[in-house]
């Protein structure tokens, strides 16, 4: 297993380098001069030359590439062209907003998707239970998160006036209170801040969570179907254990092992989902930052955001693979 872990770790490094290289070359080699894109066709030759020099685009491509790789490793993605301050700082400010959204959506997806998957598997091919639940999952898979988000906004924000239309709440303030220790000295203010953040988070988390729940329910159903056909489940039933005990003590716990492998896939889908969800709800975050950066032709910012997204996905996949090898010792690297 140690050999597997080491080889898996070794293979992640070139993958990470490759992915970061793809981002670099996509931004540099594809047609279109970033300076022309930023300044427009009317920009003077001097202004364009200035811009090219400032961005370091006048250097040989190989030098730019090595410089970019070296700086990426240190999370230094340069300076945002529009905002004027380091991309790293901008990403650090936006990351907690995206993290909160992903975690909240994961909770919604797990609370909705796993029970649906389990019930659907236990009542397999039941026209009254399994089929409606599978249709629900299929609808969830087919429903674009941005459309569901807009529908929730129309109903709960515009008509019922229950949730805010835009924004993400004062998460920076809440985090600041935690860091400074004010969360303990001013608990009422802190709780009000947390409440505000949750208030802003509810609809985006529901929108993203429900679309993710569809994937989770299908995968949980498959995992449960696999587990309940095992001999140890038959043994548990033969021992005379009650059905809930069989499901909870034996099936559910074993079902969670294969589910572990989908966490990587889940994070990839969730991060893609945040790009759309944050745009619909006009929430701050890495996804919205990426879309805004692309719209404003702020290449360092866009490059930084995409690189961070990719790094997160590769790292999560690596951690999941390693965890899986620990949980299931039969796994070997081949």
């Amino acid at each position, binding site marked *: 297993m140690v050999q597997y872990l080491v080889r898996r770790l070794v293979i992640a490094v*070139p*993958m*990470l380098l*490759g*992915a970061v290289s*793809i*981002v670099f070359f*996509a*931004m540099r*080699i*594809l*047609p*279109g001069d970033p300076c022309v894109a930023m300044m427009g066709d009317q920009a003077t030759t001097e202004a364009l030359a200035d811009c090219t020099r400032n961005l370091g685009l006048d250097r040989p491509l190989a030098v730019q590439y090595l410089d970019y790789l070296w700086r990426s490793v240190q999370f230094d993605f340069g300076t945002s062209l529009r905002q004027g301050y380091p991309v790293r700082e901008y990403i650090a400010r936006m990351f907690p907003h995206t993290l909160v959204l992903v975690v909240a959506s994961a909770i919604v997806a797990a609370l909705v998707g796993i029970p649906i998957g389990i019930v659907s598997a236990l009542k*397999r*091919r039941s*026209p009254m239970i399994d*089929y409606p639940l*599978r249709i629900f999952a*299929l*609808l969830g*898979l*087919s*429903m*674009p998160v*941005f*459309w569901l988000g*807009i*529908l929730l*906004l*129309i109903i709960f924000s*515009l008509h019922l006036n229950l949730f805010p239309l835009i924004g993400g709440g004062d998460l920076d303030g809440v985090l600041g209170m935690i860091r400074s220790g004010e969360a303990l000295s001013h608990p009422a203010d802190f709780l009000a801040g947390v409440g505000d953040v949750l208030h802003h988070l509810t609809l985006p988390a529901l929108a993203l969570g429900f679309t993710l729940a569809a994937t989770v329910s*299908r995968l949980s*159903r*498959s995992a449960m*179907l696999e587990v309940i056909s095992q001999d140890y489940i038959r043994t548990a039933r033969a021992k005379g254990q009650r059905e809930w005990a069989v499901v909870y003590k034996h099936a559910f716990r074993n079902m969670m092992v294969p589910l572990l492998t989908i966490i990587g896939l889940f994070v*990839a*889908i969730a*991060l*893609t989902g945040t*790009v*759309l969800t944050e*745009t*619909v709800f006009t929430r701050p975050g890495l996804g919205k930052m*990426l*879309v805004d950066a*692309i*719209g404003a032709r702020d290449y360092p910012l*866009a490059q930084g955001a*995409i690189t961070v*997204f*990719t790094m997160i*996905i*590769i790292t999560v*996949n690596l951690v999941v693979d390693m965890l899986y090898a620990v949980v299931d010792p039969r796994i070997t690297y081949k």
Partner: protein
Amino acid sequence: MAIVRGAAPELTTAAVLPDASGQSRGRAWRRYAPIGIGVMMALAMIVMAAGAPLIAPMSPSAQFADAVLKGPGAVERHALGTDEFGRDLLSRIIWGARVSLQVGLASVIFGFALGVPLGILAGVRGDWVETSIMRAADMLMAFPTLLLALIIVTGLGGSLANEILAIGVALTPNFVRLARSLALTIREQDYILAARALGGGQLRVMARHVFPNALYALVVVATLYIATAIRTEASLSFLGLGIPPPTPSWGNILSEGRQYIKCCPWITTFSGLAIMLAVLAFNLVGDALRDLLDPRLRGE
């Protein structure tokens, strides 16, 4: 014995057969209904896209100054209402089907044509060829489909061809992986050994034996990827990176309608519904085909 012999058919015809045929009808209905519904929805979309000039009640770009942001049925000629320029929403949605279907089909064909030969080559050849193809595919797979398509479209600019290219490239590693895993199984079969023993070259074995045997699974997955491609196209257009207005695509209609959700929610509602139904149609067909063709995967 005669009584027993005589009784059995009676029992069968009177009690067992109707019940059994009722059950099998129910089973057949449950089995074939999803694919039937999916195929009908997908056909409706194809007809809508192909026949847009004939079916759409008016031009998608015609502006009616007297009917700006009118709701469904408020003006008789606009069944689904109008947008901020007074354009007929129904006509725009019908024309928008063209973009979705073109991108959906063409990008999957692109990914299939590029990814399947590479995947089969990797699976059959093995050694360094397999390693390099699979490492490249793994690298691309580190990017979710939308993110990779977004990177490419950002560099190339939003247009129909660029969207097809971007989504096609983003789907390619999925086809590579699937084709390779199928090829790995197929290459161990006796008929491959026989083909090789008969002097079949590697290319011939791949084209004449591996590919046809992998085809059904690849087609099933390709159907599911049409749904992914349609959703990705809509997402790119929604983010303003797809086909630019005034050419109607479901994503850009929805994106433009976002500014008017307070007064005129029908724009986003109907365009989003069109996206969902199109994605659902191909998901239904893909899921049902998989169930029918590969019983091991049934219901998974």
